[in-house]
């Protein structure tokens, strides 16, 4: 197994028919890190993984493992493991054979292959289905085979492309824990693509947020969650309320009401800005608040997600454990440290 200290992506670019699917990605991955790639559908996450794996030739840029250049090496010589977004299981091999394939390729001893394969299959709860062919499995089961196949070889770098998207909540939680545990116990380095922010926030050491092929922000989960670098990141990270306004000294004028918030980036007075706040950060009640009318209510278990509208017609998303009904009028307030103000 080729281990490494750092893996450096240097302006990695990939074009399809002239359009940039990934443009100038610079990233340094340290050994043992858990990196999550995050971004809207079609932003280039899978492309980035494929470039890293060597499955797509780069249009530009280079990849370095410590001192040696990696991007001209064929994928099988890089020693990485990968969970494909579309699984790409071997249709003619049983679950067991799929999982043990990588070990066979690495010439591991037979007994060891057996042991590790069994273990990996147990890890993903497919003991009963070990003899089935992929075509005989349910979607989630197939996805788990893909996970087992990638981790069983304990690669120096494991690339996972939305590995849990087809699993139910309970299993997903469990798999998350297992993946983290493997990552830690085996000292793997992981690059993890997910569309699930919670997953990214809870698992990763660092997040890379992409949009339309370009990096928007790189940082720890807390940084990214609390301080999105721009309004797009904010939008993507659950700041569902994006209120256009005009910056005033320390506050924002939205329509004809004034709220105070925390500016992010260069915001000068008089600039058009966007004030962003998450639904769950909007505080209900409180006299000083802005009055809104509840329009749509969605039941989310313990909580309620509501869509409301201010008197001047601005829509507002709320999240609360209070019972609301459409037509209710409530007053809302925005905690200034939670209301971020971005240049528009």
């Amino acid at each position, binding site marked *: 197994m080729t281990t490494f200290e750092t893996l450096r992506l240097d302006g990695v670019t990939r074009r399809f028919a002239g359009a940039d699917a990934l443009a100038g990605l610079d990233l340094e991955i340290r050994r043992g890190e858990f990196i999550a790639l995050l971004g809207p559908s079609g932003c280039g996450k899978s492309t980035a993984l494929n470039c890293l794996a060597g499955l797509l*030739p780069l*249009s530009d840029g280079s990849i370095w493992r410590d001192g040696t250049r990696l991007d*001209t090496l064929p994928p099988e010589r890089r020693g990485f493991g990968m969970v494909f*977004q*579309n*699984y790409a299981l071997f249709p003619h091999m049983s679950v067991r054979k799929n999982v043990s394939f990588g070990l066979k390729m690495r010439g591991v001893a037979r007994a060891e292959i057996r042991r590790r394969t069994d273990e990996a299959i147990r890890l993903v709860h497919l003991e009963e289905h070990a003899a089935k062919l992929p075509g005989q499995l349910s979607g989630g089961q197939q996805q788990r085979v893909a996970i087992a196949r990638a981790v069983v070889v304990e690669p120096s770098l494991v690339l996972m492309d939305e590995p849990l998207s087809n699993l139910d909540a309970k299993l997903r939680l469990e798999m998350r824990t297992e993946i983290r545990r493997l990552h830690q116990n085996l000292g793997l380095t992981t690059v993890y693509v997910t569309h699930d922010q919670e997953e990214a926030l809870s698992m990763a050491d660092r997040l890379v947020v992409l949009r339309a092929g370009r990096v928007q922000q790189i940082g720890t989960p807390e940084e990214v969650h609390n301080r999105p670098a721009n309004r797009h990141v904010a939008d993507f990270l659950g700041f569902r309320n994006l209120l256009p306004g005009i910056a005033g000294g320390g506050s924002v004028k939205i329509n004809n009401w004034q709220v105070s918030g925390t500016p992010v980036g260069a915001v000068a007075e008089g600039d058009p800005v966007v004030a962003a706040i998450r639904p769950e950060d909007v505080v209900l009640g409180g006299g000083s608040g802005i009055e809104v009318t509840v329009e749509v209510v969605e039941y989310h278990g313990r909580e309620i997600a509501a869509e409301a509208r201010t008197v001047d017609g601005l829509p507002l998303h709320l999240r609360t454990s209070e019972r609301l009904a459409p037509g209710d009028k409530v007053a809302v307030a925005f905690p200034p440290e939670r209301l971020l103000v971005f240049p528009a």
Partner: protein
Amino acid sequence: MTAPTLAVRHRLAERGIDPQLLLLVPATVFVVALFVYPFCYGIAVSLQPAQGGALAAYRTFFSDAYQRDTITTTLAIALPAALFNVLAAVPIAYRMRGRFRGKRLLTTVLVVPITLGTVLTAEGLLNFLGPTGWFNRVLIFLKVTDQPVTLTHNYWGVFFSLIITGFPFAFLLVLSYLSGIDPSLERAAATLGAGWVQRFFRITLPLLAPGLATTFCLTFVLAFSVFPSAILVGDPSGSTRVISIAAYEAAYVRYDYAGASAAAIVMGAVELLVISVVLGLRSLLYTGSTAGGKG
């Protein structure tokens, strides 16, 4: 490895040139060594007739209607036969793509005729369809006709022999190509309201088309080079005087190798023309994975 060579490699890889192309080497070496050289020699021979200039053999071929017409005769046999084989193979293979009991047996039986060989086929056709063969006996017995129907030593004899040898060939290929198409696509089409006709024409057929093109090319080539059956069950001096007979006679009866090579090369050129058209059309089609998503 130095940086410039890396850069060169990079750029070559971009254009699709990388070490994987080495996989082509054995086949290429093979074809160049054992085909290209002898073939060039063959062309050279066709350009060196006993008398006349370089193109005399070709001129002779094209100026003699008896020789020239072999092209149309051959096409008139090969094109319908190849088309028929492919077109008949498709619905049968399509019917048989699912699983059912006895499929294996049925497949085997359908494929059996490729084992017959030209001689048995010819003998069989002559025996079976001949004036006193079972076929005519049955017809006469049933009073469908009172004179034996002539189905041998003419166009039909050759046509039937091409079907007997060509159909299983086409069927085997088409069935195999069909089996590579993800059945869930047809299911998806069904949920969108497509009946079997539409599913067949809009989903299966387009995905099968590249394979069909190849199958057509191969059956066409086989039919085009029909030689033994054109002689054995055909009418080798008349309606089934195909171009390979012309080449054969030049080479082996008249010992006119220039003429023979010329005829054979004309034959290859005509085939190439037809096949280029088909493969050209093929390249306009979708070729690629027939999987419809993940999993």
